[in-house]
């Protein structure tokens, strides 16, 4: 047979609660208990509110560049909800909602964007790694973390998040390939929000789906409506069960949309149409759950008002905690370099405000030392 079939496949798209309020009972029933749904909704509202707070902080000069999560709350939240608390959650920078669900303190994230490493040092009680700035690199860490757990005989998987843009980096390919060939249980979640700063997703893939990025590695692949919390929960459940059982990775594309600018340093109006944004506003993941809960009598406007009040208080407390942290001392960025600081770094640290680099005063000839001291004193008076 000269022409035979070497490979054949099909990738499914899953949607459970769509933007018109249609709910697929078959897939969705019992997926999220009512009480949990309320909590998940509250978490999304709180996350969205913090986005606005952060935006204002940045605009008033109290924070540096900040990337809003707005519109994408359901993706990481769905995953964090499904994962066990000791599964690794290895994220990029637009997964606040999942991280907060995990228990990462809000001030940790705020501090990071306030340019303070101490944010990353704050308790990550539930196996969440710090925000990854160099795109596409963290998925390899997810594989390594999980491989270490597997080596230690622990029943632990990882779920790692990255963007449509980040999936163009070579490290993405290497991470997927390592996980599949070395049989490491990692759920890869590609958040396709249609943009990488100003670059449309069609510039980062010419394929009809991003889900098929996983076919290269023989992974099961799935595409879901990422603005549908039910679908993200469903997909992560399917994937995490598969990967936990088989020790093999799984690939999910969550289709979502970045409602805000790329970061506070960006102006999305330069490159995308308002009509597109408006259309996606109609597919908002939060609104969808709200309407669903209202229809099921799980929610009403009184509860909503109370929630907003509570969230405002909580978030401003988080901001206060982030802002009230003591001013860092320069010793910190030296001391964090190595477990035991090399002698040369000790000198650099201890003399940075008093001496020139490489100029150990004990090396100066006596009279020069004298002169230098005088000049320093004079200069101090002078300035």
């Amino acid at each position, binding site marked *: 047979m000269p022409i035979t079939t070497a490979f054949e496949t099909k990738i499914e798209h899953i949607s459970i609660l769509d933007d018109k309020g249609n709910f697929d009972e078959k897939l969705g029933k019992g997926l999220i208990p009512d009480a949990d749904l309320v909590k998940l909704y509250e978490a999304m509202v709180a996350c969205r509110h913090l986005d606005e707070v952060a935006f204002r902080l940045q605009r008033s000069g109290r924070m*540096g*560049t900040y990337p809003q999560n707005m519109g994408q709350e359901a993706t990481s939240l769905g995953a964090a909800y499904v994962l066990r608390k000791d599964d690794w959650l290895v994220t990029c920078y637009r997964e606040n909602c999942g991280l907060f669900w995990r228990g990462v303190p809000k001030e940790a994230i705020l501090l*990071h*964007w*306030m*340019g*303070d*490493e101490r944010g990353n040092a704050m308790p990550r009680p539930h196996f969440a790694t710090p925000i990854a*700035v*160099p*795109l*596409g690199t963290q998925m390899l860490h997810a594989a390594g973390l999980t491989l270490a757990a597997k080596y230690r005989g622990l029943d632990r998987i990882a779920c790692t998040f990255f963007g449509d*843009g*980040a999936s*163009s*980096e*070579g*490290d993405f390919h290497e991470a997927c390939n390592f996980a599949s060939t070395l049989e490491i249980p990692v759920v890869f979640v590609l958040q396709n929000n249609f943009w*990488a*700063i*100003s*670059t449309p997703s069609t*510039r*980062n*893939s010419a394929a009809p789906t991003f889900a098929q990025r996983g076919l290269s590695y023989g992974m099961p692949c799935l595409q879901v409506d990422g603005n549908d919390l039910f679908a993200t929960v469903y997909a992560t459940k399917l994937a995490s069960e598969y990967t936990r059982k088989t020790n093999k990775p799984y690939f999910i594309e969550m289709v979502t949309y970045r409602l805000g600018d790329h970061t506070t*340093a*960006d102006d999305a109006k*330069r*490159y995308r149409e308002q009509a597109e944004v408006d259309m996606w506003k109609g597919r908002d993941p939060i609104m969808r759950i709200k309407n669903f809960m209202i229809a099921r009598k799980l929610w009403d406007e009184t509860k909503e008002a109370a929630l907003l009040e509570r969230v405002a208080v909580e978030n401003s407390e988080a901001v206060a905690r982030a802002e009230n942290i003591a001013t*860092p001392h*320069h010793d*910190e*960025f*030296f001391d*964090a*370099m190595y477990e035991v600081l090399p002698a*040369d*770094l000790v000198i*650099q*640290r201890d003399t*940075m405000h008093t*001496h*020139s*680099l*490489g*100029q150990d005063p004990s090396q*100066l*000839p006596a009279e*020069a030392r004298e*002169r*230098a001291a005088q*000049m*320093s004193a004079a*200069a101090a008076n*002078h*300035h």
Partner: protein
Amino acid sequence: MANLNLVQAINLALIQEMEKNDGIVLLGEDIGVNGGVFRVTEGLQKRFGNARVFDTPLAESGIIGLSIGMAMGGLHPVPEIQFDGFLGPAYDQLVSHAARMRSRTRGAYTVPMTVRVPVGGGIHAPELHSESPEAIYAHTPGLKVVMPSSPYDAKGLLVACLREPDPVIFFEPKRIYRAIREEVPEDEYTLPLGKARVVCEGTELTIVSWGASVVQCMQAIEKSERSIELIDLRTIYPFDVDAVAESVSKTGRCVIVHEAPLTCGFGAEISARIMERCFLQLEAPVQRVAGFDTTMPYYKMELEYLPDAPRVSRAIEDCLAY
């Protein structure tokens, strides 16, 4: 003659050279419609079309690898790497191919390309947006490394790079992208690569610096009552050792200022060369004012890390007191 900042001077240089040489092609992340995150390529896609100015997928090794092929194919690509910290993924293509293709093929293939990279700290940016990796590439034979410190220099040097037959990394000190304005001729001019500029003359001490640090050096010199000569390297590799040696032979003292970490920063090479060339004229050890041997801290503490005028002043005093 127009009063331009660095961003505008670079933009102008690109436009003028692109008008002349249709082999110049710009590529990178968000350089098209968006004009780059610093707006350096603003308006260029509109002006020159999508084939000459285009956005790439988000992958730096790909950007440089593609550019190498384009250069081997007869164009002069001008890839932009969005931030210094993201040169990392492109390191291998730069070092294993761009730097070697001419030597590997004894000239049969060459890689004329100008890699544009915003560089350095001081703008309150997130992690990996404030690095100074010039020494890494100066240690890579086959590349040239350029870093202007003013709008005038930026235009003249960039035009020279765009006419270079060999690969150049053109570092743009982002801290002074918009901080300095000066008169920049509309007319064509180039500044030769490998030639330093004497910013101000002096007799008692020489400062050697480049990029945004030149500004801190000038501040320190203004505050000083001593006669200090300031040399802006302009090109890191090949560097103008003659200009430095001549100056230090005259003054007998030297302070080198750069943002990159001290150890094995380019200041080390300059210091070693000065010793080799001016040993008998040196009256004090060469001083280095540099970033510390730590990771560049997040922005709350970046000003503690970066060499500033007071630190330069202290080094001047220490060196003169020796």
